[in-house]
């Protein structure tokens, strides 16, 4: 790919590090951009190493590129050029953008060519990433939200630690009981993702055009009754003083839970392992709550998937495909699941010995998987597809913050919807 | 060895008042030219203009026959001792001295040799490795001097280069500077406040006052024939005594300071008998009256102040509202309040016209001694 890197001093280095030029080993070398840091990166590096050792035709180089947002920005800048990597990890809300960008090769073409059996993968996950029946990217790290609670505190408050509250009003009541001078009853990270989930589990849509899946969405729907339910739910607790606001930072809310400042909170399934490890008390994991007047629909998949670049050498695409396939194997998924708490996209992974052992030790893990598998398929739980999702999430964060400051729920939701509408309008207007 | 010519040179800092105006003078190649004048009269300004550091407001400056008004300083091939030294604070004494040589790409060993020689001459050898801030005032001044000397440029400008040195060192430096200037044939322009330097070092002196030339000439000529009262009082220490005077052509006497009647020789006659005059006499020409002095020639003065300087004694008295001073060799036991008889010789009198300041009578008897006339060989 770097044939025209002329006489700069870095020639050697670039030859070494750039994909496709590892002539000495005769291997096809590709780059894999990801946004995994911390333990996620550790695990990922190990998996990549495993792949490289498992065969001698391909070599994958995993390169960290910053947060989801940062790596996407970078991808936008190099997309379609020789600097683009063969594989990129993009978060779920970037799906629409990626499809529209024209920089990517849908994995569906390889699936077809290779007769890859998709049914081995978790259907609920595929649901999200399938657009118009086609799979554009290979799911990889998937998470869902769960509600984590302090069993010991439940006991102290005279509640059944094995029975977590399920509906909004139950949560409100339980929170009331759990609230002490030092401890709030309930909390949720100020992050749009959780709001999306709480809307979806009620069967509510985020945007029109069937959540953006039957056409470009033009109007936000999350300020409808389902959204309002969520805001009212939070508002009630906030006004009652049973809701603890720990901001937008994952660590803050987790620390609050671990240091018993809050008894129940919403977290990603990927956070369960940490919560259990850090808490000096018994930790319970439950499904996310839903509004009393509706049926539980379940959760939308979160996390990220792997995208293949278009316009790169064929053998590089092949390498990328091989790697993706490798990533779906039960062994890899088991390791990934255990290291990080993300789901195994291949349910067979749950049959692996080490997973079983772990589940025996921490039955809480199972809850996250069950919740996903219990999810009712539908437009709502399939998740929204809009290209301006990050911006919309920002609007929600602001709305939540205003809500916690005592603003009117409907008003702030409408504002967020308005902002989202404008963003969508601009996006549609400027679309090529 | 270059001529420096100043033609109608003027300078103004604020575009309003000229601090220097209409200077016309030619400094000959190899000449030692001394510039004196009261504080603030524009000496440094003039040097700085010649050096190219100060813009010339009007007039022409020629260096070695070429007009140099716009020439940058580094093209003028001169060296300069700044009144405030301007040493390089980050360099050692050695490096400061050798700096100019280094600039001219003189070889290192030669640089070092020359720097050391000059340092030796100026008594700086033991400070060669120090930074300027670790030196005493006089030592810094010597470094500044060394820097100019070592460069051996054809033109050298020195702005009060010896002001912070003691008498002994200064005497030594006077000689050395003069010697070097002669040996190398440097054209030297030298600003000083020191009478001895002015009198002994220069081929010519120029006296500047309020930015204007008062007189240019050989030191001794200026001393003997000051062009105007300003020069008369400026050159010579203590200065020439001055008092208003009137010429009484009838009695052929001169009335000095309204009190002293001095008989004039018959042939002396001042063209403007009615006009106001200024009479001047140097302190050393006010001599003690001796036993043999006829009483009529004695002037009695009441001493107001006495200073015994070791080898001479200066006392003051009042005449016509001015303080007059007399200087006699030796240590005299005089006290304030003493009445002392003194002698005035008309021969040593200067007379100026009061309005124009023009010298109309030169002193004739200057206490000039020639062996064979006064003393027996």
């Amino acid at each position: 790919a770097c044939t025209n890197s002329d006489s700069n001093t870095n020639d050697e280095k670039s030859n070494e590090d750039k994909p496709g030029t590892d002539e000495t080993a005769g291997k096809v070398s590709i780059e894999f951009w990801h946004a995994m840091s911390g333990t996620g990166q550790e695990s990922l590096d190990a998996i990549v190493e495993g792949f490289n050792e498992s065969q001698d035709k391909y070599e994958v180089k995993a390169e960290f590129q910053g947060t989801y947002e940062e790596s996407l920005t970078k991808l936008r800048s190099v997309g379609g050029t020789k600097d683009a990597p063969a594989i990129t990890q993009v978060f779920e809300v970037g799906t629409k953008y990626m499809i529209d960008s024209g920089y990517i090769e849908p994995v569906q073409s390889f699936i077809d060519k290779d007769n890859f059996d998709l049914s081995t993968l978790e259907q609920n996950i595929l649901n999200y990433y399938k657009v118009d029946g086609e799979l554009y990217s290979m799911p990889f790290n998937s998470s869902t939200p769960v509600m984590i609670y302090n069993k010991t505190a439940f006991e102290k408050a005279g509640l059944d630690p094995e029975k977590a509250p399920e509906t909004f009003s139950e949560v409100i009541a339980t929170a009331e009981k759990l609230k002490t001078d030092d401890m709030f009853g309930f909390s949720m990270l100020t992050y749009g993702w959780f709001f999306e989930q709480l809307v979806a589990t009620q069967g509510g849509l985020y945007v029109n055009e069937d959540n953006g899946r039957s056409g470009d969405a033009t109007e936000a729907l999350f300020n409808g009754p389902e959204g309002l339910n969520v805001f009212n739910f939070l508002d009630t607790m906030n006004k009652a003083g049973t809701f603890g606001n720990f901001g937008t930072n994952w660590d803050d809310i987790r620390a609050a839970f671990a240091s018993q400042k809050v008894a129940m909170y919403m977290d990603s399934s990927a956070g369960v392992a940490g919560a259990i490890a850090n808490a000096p008390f018994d930790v319970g994991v439950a499904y996310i709550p839903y509004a009393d007047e509706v049926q539980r629909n379940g959760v939308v998949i979160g996390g990220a998937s792997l995208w293949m670049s278009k316009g790169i050498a064929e053998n590089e695409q092949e390498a990328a495909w091989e790697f993706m396939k490798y990533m779906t194997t039960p062994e890899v998924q088991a390791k990934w699941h255990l290291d990080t708490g993300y789901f195994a996209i291949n349910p067979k992974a749950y049959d692996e010995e080490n997973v079983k052992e772990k589940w025996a030790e921490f039955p809480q893990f199972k809850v996250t998987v069950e919740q996903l598998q219990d999810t009712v398929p539908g437009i709502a739980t399939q998740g929204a597809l809009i290209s301006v999702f990050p911006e919309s999430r920002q609007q929600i964060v602001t709305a939540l913050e205003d809500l916690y400051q005592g603003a009117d729920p409907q008003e702030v939701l409408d504002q967020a919807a308005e902002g989202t509408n404008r963003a969508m309008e601009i996006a549609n207007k400027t679309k090529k | 060895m270059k001529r420096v010519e100043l033609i109608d040179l003027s300078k103004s800092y604020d575009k309003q008042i000229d601090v220097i105006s209409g200077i016309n003078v030619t400094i000959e190649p190899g000449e030692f030219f001394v510039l004196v004048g009261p504080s603030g009269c524009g000496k440094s300004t003039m040097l700085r203009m010649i050096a190219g550091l100060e813009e010339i407001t009007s007039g022409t400056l020629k260096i070695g026959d070429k007009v140099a008004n716009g020439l940058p300083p580094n093209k003028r091939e001169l060296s300069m001792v700044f009144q405030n030294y301007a040493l390089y604070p980050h360099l050692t004494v050695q490096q400061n001295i050798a700096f100019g040589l280094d600039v001219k790409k003189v070889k290192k060993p030669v640089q070092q040799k020359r720097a050391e020689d000059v340092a030796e001459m100026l008594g700086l050898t033991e400070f060669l490795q120090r930074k300027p801030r670790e030196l005493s005032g006089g030592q810094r001044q010597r470094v500044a001097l060394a820097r100019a000397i070592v460069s051996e440029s054809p033109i050298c400008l020195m702005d009060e280069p010896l002001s912070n040195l003691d008498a002994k060192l200064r005497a030594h430096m006077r000689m050395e500077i003069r010697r070097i200037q002669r040996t190398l044939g440097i054209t030297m322009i030298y600003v000083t406040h020191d009478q001895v330097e002015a009198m002994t070092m220069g081929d010519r002196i120029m006296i500047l006052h309020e930015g204007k030339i008062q007189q240019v000439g050989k030191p001794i000529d200026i001393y003997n024939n000051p062009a105007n009262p300003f020069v008369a009082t400026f050159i010579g220490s203590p200065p020439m005594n001055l008092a208003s005077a009137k010429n009484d052509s009838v009695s052929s006497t001169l009335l000095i300071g309204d009190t002293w009647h001095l008989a004039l020789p018959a042939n002396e006659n001042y063209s403007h008998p009615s006009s106001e005059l200024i009479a001047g006499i140097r302190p050393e020409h006010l001599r003690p009256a001796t036993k043999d002095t006829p009483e009529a020639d004695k002037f009695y003065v009441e001493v107001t102040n006495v200073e015994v300087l070791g080898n001479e004694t200066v006392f003051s008295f009042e005449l016509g509202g001015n303080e007059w001073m007399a200087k006699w060799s030796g240590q005299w036991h005089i006290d304030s309040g003493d009445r002392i008889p003194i002698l005035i010789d008309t021969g040593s009198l200067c007379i100026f016209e009061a309005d124009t300041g023009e010298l109309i009578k030169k002193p004739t008897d200057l206490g000039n001694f020639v062996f064979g006339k006064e003393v027996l060989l």
Partner: protein
Amino acid sequence: MTISLPKKIWIYFLLTVTSLLVFFPVLYAFMISFMTGPEILQGKFFPQSFSLDNYFKVFDRLPLVKYLVNSFVVSVGVMFGQLLVCSLAAYAFVFMPFKGRDFIFFVFISTMMIPWEATMIPNFFTIQKLDWLNTYQGLTIPFFALAFGTFLLRQHFKTIPKELHEASQIAGLSRFAFFWRVILPVSKTSLVTLGAYGFLTTWNMYLWPLLITTNSSVRTVQIGLKQLQSQEMSTDWGVVMAGVIVVIIPTLLLLFLGQKQLQKGLSQGALK
């Protein structure tokens, strides 16, 4: 100059109290770098034991030595580049009068006001066109011209006694020689300050190196720091703080060495 004893005690007191306040966060980070997860959440100040586990983990997880070397190369490169480019410009601004000088200076200054974030994307494309992605020059050259540095040096050059310029002119020094042999040595203090600034800001840069590097060949240590923190997985604070300590030690050392250079009065003794 002599300082009286009570005053000395008072100054030492103030020095101690304020430096404790200033240094507390760093000290705290240092302590945390030895703690385990639960210890941290319990909010202790002193770790139970000074175990180096977290440090081992840091070096284990990342090619930290390589990152440190890269950071060092890049920071030193930017430092010297800035010193050269800025001092040249500042010199022109102070010692060469020309028409429109103030205007050009102000144009220079105005570049400080342009938010870096606003220029980053076009710059990225420029670097990409120059084929400087993943190279040291891509990481350094865009930062060589620095209005701030020009400004800093100009302020300092302006305080240099003009007699030095005059003396040098008379010594026959060319413009450049005066700059090189007098101005730079005399301005050591400011150059050290600017050097430290350039080094440290480069050392601390995150977004740009992230953007123009796609692999670890020339990546700098701040990206490493970021890699230690994870968004959704529970951050391992002990390890992060260990990383923080590893990352700040070289810069603290540099500051310590640099401050020795901030000696008193480099232009003193110049004049009478």
